[in-house]
């Protein structure tokens, strides 16, 4: 499969259909992969596609350091492609500027598995987000590496702790989250890793007034994590990069998955599946429910 990918990338660069290919190359650590940026056909042989290809490369499309004039080809798993579609929906990139090299994906390795140096994909090493994946084949692509794979019904819910938390009292939930968020050091790795956190000036960087306190104390941590989760509501595609990048192992996906489920339940909307649609929180239906309003 890596071969198919390399050939395609080489072709695109030789024919000058794209100025750059963003994909995965081998990392310096055992079994790892990392983002690479290819601009000449000879470099195409560096591209790989393995279960260690965890990064969401869409994050590079909104960073000025990795933008090049002209079209860009990007290798995208289903979740990465969803992020691309939200960026298109939000007018941050244009579909015609992208050549999407879709990757038919059976899943990637979890952070824990990678830390332990494991390279083989199985039930134990599979990343949690993959267990509830809807898009083993990207929804749209210009070229597909591998055969189309249908997403199976999830056999279990890796985020079942969400339902468990929902069944507890507010005090218990508060204790749980205060505990988890106490480890937050406000490094903003979650924000930087997220392809959809592309604001030139994040709300935390507004200092007049300082809406979100910069300090990593309990109050500042709560404000940051609530607001980030909310700014991603209806937009988050569940790629899990935030949780993977977090150096303090905070279960950020619980917040994001919870909100994604809310948006699906309340408005029947799932982010990144159809870029012709309006984002859920950017639009409304006069018949939206208001059972919570007196």
């Amino acid at each position, binding site marked *: 499969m890596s071969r198919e990918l390399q050939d395609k990338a080489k072709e695109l660069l030789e024919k000058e259909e794209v100025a750059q290919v963003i994909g995965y190359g081998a990392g310096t650590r055992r079994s790892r992969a990392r983002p690479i940026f290819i601009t000449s056909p000879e470099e195409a042989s560096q591209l790989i596609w393995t279960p260690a290809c965890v990064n969401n490369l869409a994050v590079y499309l909104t960073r000025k350091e990795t933008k090049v004039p002209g079209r860009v080809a990007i290798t995208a798993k289903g979740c990465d492609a969803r992020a691309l579609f939200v960026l298109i929906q939000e007018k941050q990139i244009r579909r015609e500027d992208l050549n999407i090299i879709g990757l038919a994906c059976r899943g990637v390795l979890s952070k824990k598995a990678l830390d332990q140096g494991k390279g083989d994909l199985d039930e134990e090493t599979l990343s949690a987000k993959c267990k509830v994946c809807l898009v083993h084949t990207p929804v749209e692509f210009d070229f597909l590496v591998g055969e189309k794979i249908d997403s199976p019904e999830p056999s279990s819910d890796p985020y079942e702790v969400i339902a468990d938390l929902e069944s507890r009292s*507010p005090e218990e*939930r508060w204790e749980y989250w205060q505990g988890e968020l106490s480890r937050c050091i406000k490094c903003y790795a979650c924000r930087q890793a997220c392809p959809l956190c592309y604001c030139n000036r994040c709300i935390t960087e507004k200092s007049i007034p300082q809406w979100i306190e910069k300090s990593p104390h309990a109050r500042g941590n709560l*404000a940051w994590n609530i607001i980030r989760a*909310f700014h991603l*509501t209806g937009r988050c595609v569940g790629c899990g990069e935030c949780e993977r990048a977090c150096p303090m192992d905070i279960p950020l996906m619980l917040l994001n998955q*919870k909100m994604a489920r*809310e948006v699906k339940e309340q408005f029947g909307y799932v982010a990144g599946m159809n870029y012709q649609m309006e984002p859920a*929180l950017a639009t*409304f239906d*006069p018949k939206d429910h208001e059972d919570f309003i007196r």
Partner: protein
Amino acid sequence: MESKERETEMGLTRGAGSKEGGNGWEPKITAFVCNWCTYAGADLAGTSRLKHSPQIRVIKLPCTGRIDPLFILKAFERGSDGVLVSGCHPGDCHYTSGNYHARRRFATFRKLLEFLGIDLRRVQFSWVSAAEGAKWAKMVNEVTRQVREMGPFEGYRKISDG
């Protein structure tokens, strides 16, 4: 002295002008209301001499669509025990659709707050039109009563430390 005590003493966070639940403590409720409907309704309650709980502090905004969920968080950070958000009825928004956007926004934001352990009786929403002075008074009394029953927002009080 420790920064937590200092913050309380300076009235920055919990405790400004109020005492622990029990000793004559009264809840602090912050209301974010829209200018064209609810604020006018509150005005009408006033001119009609309708009595309601004085614990409410009203912040007027042009439209509920302008209310950033961050305001609700800030209200709690700065010592509110409860927050009320109120605006025009659907279809009556002075800016046509501001309240529709607000509706979706708050429908989801409140679930996030709930998930993080905030009791939703502390964050309430209503549509109050310019003619509904009585409804405004009723809402204020209702929210104040519920929050008073629940007591001070201990959660936020505890995390306001240095």
